[in-house]
């Protein structure tokens, strides 16, 4: 089992992005997903810049994957997607089915991203037939469902699981960060830049609940499967996706690396650098915001 750095979900300054990936080149990662997969208005790095970064990271020995935009709305979104597919130097992660069409037409292997909604073995088999070489389950999928799917799945496709970070939960045409500042989306003044880990949303009694990240809504809780490595291994999961955060990401990677090596203290190391409360309810078939460790009978599976 190895480690992947998921695509950056937030909008950071160009310097911060370059510095982040400069460091990432030295982290014990098998692969790095690059590109703007959330909002087409985020332009401090264009596709050409991401491709240059990709070359650098590939030079440092990382497998590089370009992550496609999750919500395609306009012709210019499609243009970027076609250029990403057409470049051909790097694998692409398809995050919606238009990208699947382009990649399968191009006849290149690809990665089936978590928003393709692969909930069963039959859909995974469709994707395998079209060229998927690796896939990610939806972040809400439980261990039990994944086990059941993998029992029946085509053998040739590798499984990667979202194993760390605030959970990407929803996408909209509206921008909730712009809405917070009473700005229209087309004049958002790029306020996402002020929120390198998103904008916290709490209930009216102050309980952390969600995170606003432009058109994306994330959890406030930080999903972590660091305590589930034996189960993940048993399922035959090939890699763990760690989702970038603005601070201490190197220590997050190190904690998972330590855990993979079977050394003690990894979970404690990780707990010190998590930007929110730990959650893992989804993995245990429960509400996503729950933490099974805190629930009596946490393994109970909700019926669906």
């Amino acid at each position, binding site marked *: 089992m190895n480690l992947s750095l998921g695509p950056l979900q937030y909008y950071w300054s160009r310097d911060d992005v370059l510095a982040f990936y400069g460091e990432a080149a030295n982290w014990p990662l098998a692969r790095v997903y690059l590109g703007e997969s959330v909002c087409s208005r985020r332009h401090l790095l264009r596709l050409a810049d991401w491709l240059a970064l990709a070359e650098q990271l590939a030079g440092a020995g990382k497998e590089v994957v370009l992550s496609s935009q999750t919500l395609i709305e306009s012709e210019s979104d499609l243009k970027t997607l076609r250029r990403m597919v057409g470049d051909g130097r790097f694998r692409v992660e398809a995050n919606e089915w238009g990208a699947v069409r382009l990649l399968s037409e191009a006849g290149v292997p690809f990665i089936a991203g978590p928003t393709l909604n692969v909930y069963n073995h*039959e859909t995974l088999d469709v994707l395998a037939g079209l060229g998927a070489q690796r896939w990610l389950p939806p972040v*809400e999928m439980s261990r039990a469902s994944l086990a059941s799917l993998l029992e029946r799945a085509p053998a040739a496709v590798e499984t990667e699981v979202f194993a760390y970070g605030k959970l990407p939960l*929803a996408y*909209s*045409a509206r921008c909730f960060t712009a809405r917070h500042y009473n700005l229209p*989306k087309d004049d958002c003044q790029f306020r996402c830049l002020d929120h390198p880990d998103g*904008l916290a949303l709490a209930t009216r009694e102050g309980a952390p609940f969600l995170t606003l990240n432009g058109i994306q809504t994330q959890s406030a809780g930080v999903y972590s499967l660091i305590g589930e490595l034996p189960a993940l291994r048993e399922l035959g999961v090939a890699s763990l996706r760690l989702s970038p955060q603005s601070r201490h990401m190197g220590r997050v990677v190190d904690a998972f690396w330590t855990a993979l090596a079977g050394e003690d203290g990894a979970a404690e190391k990780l707990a010190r650098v998590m930007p929110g409360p730990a959650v893992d309810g989804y993995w245990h078939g429960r*509400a996503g915001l729950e933490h099974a460790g805190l629930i009596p009978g946490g393994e109970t599976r909700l019926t669906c």
Partner: protein
Amino acid sequence: MPLDLICPAGSLVSLKTAIDHGADAVYMGFRDNTNARAFPGLNFDEAQAAEGLRYAHDRGRRVLLALNTYPQPDIWSRWTGAIDRAAKLGMDAVILADAGLMRYAVKNYPQLRLHLSVQGSATSYEAVNFYREHFGIQRAVLPRVLSLPQVENVVRHTDVEIELFGFGGLCVMVEGRCLLSSYCTGESPNTAGVCSPPKAVQWTDTPSGLESRLNGVLLDRYGKDEKAGYPTLCKGRFEVGGETYYAIEEPTSLNTLDLLPEMLKIGIAAIKIEGRQRSPAYVAQVTKVWRAAIDSVKKNAAGFTPAPAWQAELNKLSEGQSHTLGAYLNKLSEGQSHTLGAYHRPWK
């Protein structure tokens, strides 16, 4: 066609009501989690479905079956069984979201007409054409996040008929790409066919007001003079940066009557009315108004204006909420009543 009126049938009574009031087609689900309105007391068993089909077909109308949740691997046969029943019953089309299930349908029932559900999250013609090429879908229902020019661009680049939501509940998130409900309650539309499920809702009268909670999470608190709505997760009031407001979406619903001439012009095949969970009386009134409006715009698109009586009738039905044009017509001030959603908005 064009502008077929597709109405919700949560029960046999609603189905007959919709047909009687002028629906061109109705959509329904079986009584389990194979469809996205898996609510207690709703939907059809096989005998009721057969009777509904007979009723509709006798009157020259169609029945569409929503099978638009994502099948679970260990109970895959529940979904394929539903396809088998749909074909046996003679459904006019099945509305699917899952690619694996589409493959099953095409392989086993090549004559069965397939529609891509809004839960399939296809927002571009590349995605729509993918489903066309691989599974021969004949119609796609687009998520309520595109503006009308974006919808038009999809229509121009595909042979697939395009269906839009016209009236009723409004998802502000891309359908099929929203897990907020399962994050909070364990059940999402994708897997369980429900959003903000009633069994997770709790109302409490407290000294600081009436509180609505979803699986214990406070969604809103209402003052004495405020009207409380159903606690749909994305329509609660939350705290962001020290302010308390509708951080995601006001409790509005969609009403696109004003946009009918444009929808006709760009070649929209069908308008869908949301609300299989609503009463037969609701279905009757909405169907009646939309039948009149669609007939009117087809007769004279240039001179079309929604009759004030129609709007008044629809306003009465909107759960005390304001209406919005959704993303179709997106504006900064989304609190106004009667906006058009994403279909009409100035930005790209």
